């Protein structure tokens, strides 16, 4: 059989535009400017969603009830990253947390700061560290720090 050869191939994809949902994530981002978290509640089953969702996953109905969520919560899961997804080692281990904020039924993710990797545990109490200059995007929520 003839020898095969590897050549470099490209697939450049231009930037996409994504419209985001007003009652859902856009309201949440706007409220983050005030260092507050806005989710929403299903009026039928009571599930509170954060990030906000415009419909209830379980009931499959449109939902309209905003729900303010605390910026304090509990660590539900965590991992310490030693390499990036391409296999390159990181300079320092990176703490990532999944946190259930008080008043929400769902979890959000964030970086863990001011905590040693060996001290992180499920059930640990944390709070959001807000950026000083907030602009209404996801980076307003800088990280989670111990409560």
């Amino acid at each position, binding site marked *: 059989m003839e020898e095969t050869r590897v050549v470099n191939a490209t697939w450049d994809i231009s930037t996409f535009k994504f419209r985001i949902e007003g009652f859902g994530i856009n309201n949440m981002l706007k409220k983050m400017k005030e260092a507050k978290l806005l989710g929403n509640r299903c009026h039928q089953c009571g599930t509170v969603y954060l*990030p906000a969702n415009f419909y209830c996953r379980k009931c499959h109905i449109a939902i309209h009830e905003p729900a303010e969520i605390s910026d304090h919560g509990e660590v539900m*899961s965590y991992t*310490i990253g030693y390499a990036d*997804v391409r296999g390159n080692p990181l300079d320092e281990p990176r703490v*990532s947390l999944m946190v259930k904020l008080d008043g929400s039924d769902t979890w959000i993710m964030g*970086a863990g700061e001011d905590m040693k990797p060996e001290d992180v545990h499920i059930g640990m109490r944390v709070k959001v560290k807000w950026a000083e200059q907030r602009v209404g995007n*996801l980076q307003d929520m800088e990280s989670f720090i111990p409560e």
Partner: protein
Amino acid sequence: MDKKVAIVGFRMKSAPDLVTTRERLTFELTRGLFDDLGIDRTAVDTTIFSTNDFLDGRTISNVFLDGPAGAYMRDESKVEMDGINALMYAVIRILSGQYSTAMVVALGLTGSQVSPYLHVEYQLSPVYDRQMRLLNELSAAAFQARSYLARYGYSEKLLDEVAAQALSNAAANPNQARKIPGASAEQVASSSPYYEPLRELHCYPPTDGGCAMLLASAERAKELTDKPVWVLGMGQSIETFYLGERDLAKSPSTAQAAQRAYEMAGIRDPKAEIDLAEISALFAHQEPLLAEALGLLEEGKAEEAYRSGDTAISGKMPLNPSGGALGGHPISATGIIRTAEAVRQLRGEAGDNQVGKAEVAVVHGQDGPCAQQNAVLVLGI
């Protein structure tokens, strides 16, 4: 579903680098399958591909593969999910009565030509998860592993034991890509840390591979093989994409898919009636997690099950006697390869990986981050 659709033959291949092209791999698998069965391409009523456009670097990537698969001017379509879903689609087509045979072709060259873990990064929500820059396939799996271990108070050593068993089984299997003869739990525990608690050998390896499989109606199956393996039941279920809305320590969608498949197959007590399982566990923790959801292991008893040897090839509930996806995960083909490995067992052709009694097998395939979508097949002879 009593003996209406059978798997009559397959060809599969996996390696870290197959040194081949997508077209040639497709050609070799399908040509080989036809030669094994003594048929030509006109005996295939419909061909169903399972490939991934992102990993193939081109959209609707099956349009390049119909020629090499012998589907030129024939009936052909594609499923952009794990191949087990293409197989279910093939079964349904045969059950419709309009097709007497259906071929499934699934492949992924994620060992040599594209980095495998990247595809989940590009699968994430572009307006939320991707902007958070924290989530990728490995960190998502690590969150799931941590949740699972914490739920039952399992030690991280369980992950090393699960991986050591899978890797030892894989080393004995000529169809697998990753070969670490005599892999030990200590060796797994000292492999490179990725995202705690996951290390390199807890995770699937970059793999090239594929599988072509022919299914047939009962009547046609008898003409094509003396050893048909019957599809007795199947089921699917999907959870939400967003990890924060899921119970990561369990797989309720797998439990539901299994319930549907067992009901169709008339299985009431899976622990007693199923002889072996081929599970698409991409990370070590997923094997016991999914086996619990499939009703094969008792919840909270995984440590005892692995330590006592119950889950080994010679045990009473062999899990992934082939070595599973820790031995090779050519993305898109893994569910079909698990099916082919179960067929080898049921035909008594699994060599050093053969389990004792092999009359009924359960096969599992998954898609989406942290096994979002799950599909279950029950096969029997």
